[in-house]
């Protein structure tokens, strides 16, 4: 079973978590000042990264909190998890070397 490390509770089985989409999206301060294209970009356009992706997760069946994670979308390997509000960590520093066990 895949273990996900909740920043509050530690390593937990993946069935306790739900995925929350791309992280670090900032809602425009004044949405009414945007045109339709810019608003659509904010609402719908996501990066669809192949590789390390910053995304939100929620420990829905545990502490209930949202947090952010860096996950490699090709290997499903979590490089880091961090609390909402924290800066995105450098994936190169914390990502295990390919081919080595976690």
């Amino acid at each position, binding site marked *: 079973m895949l273990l996900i490390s909740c920043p509050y509770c*530690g390593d937990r089985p993946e069935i306790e978590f739900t995925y929350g989409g791309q992280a670090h999206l900032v809602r425009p301060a004044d949405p009414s000042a945007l045109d339709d294209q810019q608003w659509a970009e904010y609402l719908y356009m996501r990066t669809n990264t192949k590789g390390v992706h910053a995304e939100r997760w929620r420990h829905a069946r545990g502490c*209930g909190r949202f947090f952010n994670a860096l996950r490699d979308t090709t290997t499903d390997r979590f490089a880091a998890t961090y609390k909402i509000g924290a800066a995105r960590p450098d994936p190169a520093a914390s990502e295990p070397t390919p081919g080595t066990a976690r």
Partner: protein
Amino acid sequence: MLEPLARIPPAFSSTSWMNPLPPATRLLFFADRAARAAAAGAFPMPVTEEACRAHADGARACLWLGPDEYLLLAPAEPGAARVQAALTAAVGPLPHALVDISHRQVAFEIHGPLAAQILNGACALDLDPAGFPVGMCTRTALAKADVVLWRTEVHRFHVEVWRSFSPYVTALLTEIAGALPAAH
């Protein structure tokens, strides 16, 4: 008029490894550090910020569920309203939320040397005493049901489950225990 609790027949009975626990006062308490410090005068509160730990004082206990989220357990008497009033008075104007959920959940104990093994039949947590020591508590998934699990002794777990899920949870655990010959 009957008390709401009295109208609901017990969903399960005692076995060699499971004890239903009597009705209790249960409160959900959302409070930051300042509000928890103020509440400590009215209810036992943990002194540390450590995650997933229960703080028991006699028959009352305060279980960490999430950051700033706690489950307060107390005997059914003198009633949730009294505990709630005392806490509200102690916390005063500090921001907090205090909700009576006494009737939402029922509790039972899983005990005996196979307790962890029985729970692990439906729960993916590492329940080895090294990974889940005495005093640790958490909300987690027991198959399809959400439960609060609290290890009160090495071979004793306190399980809180929503009332409507309790027949499912107890039937499932009974089936799991039945597959372990030594549980009988």
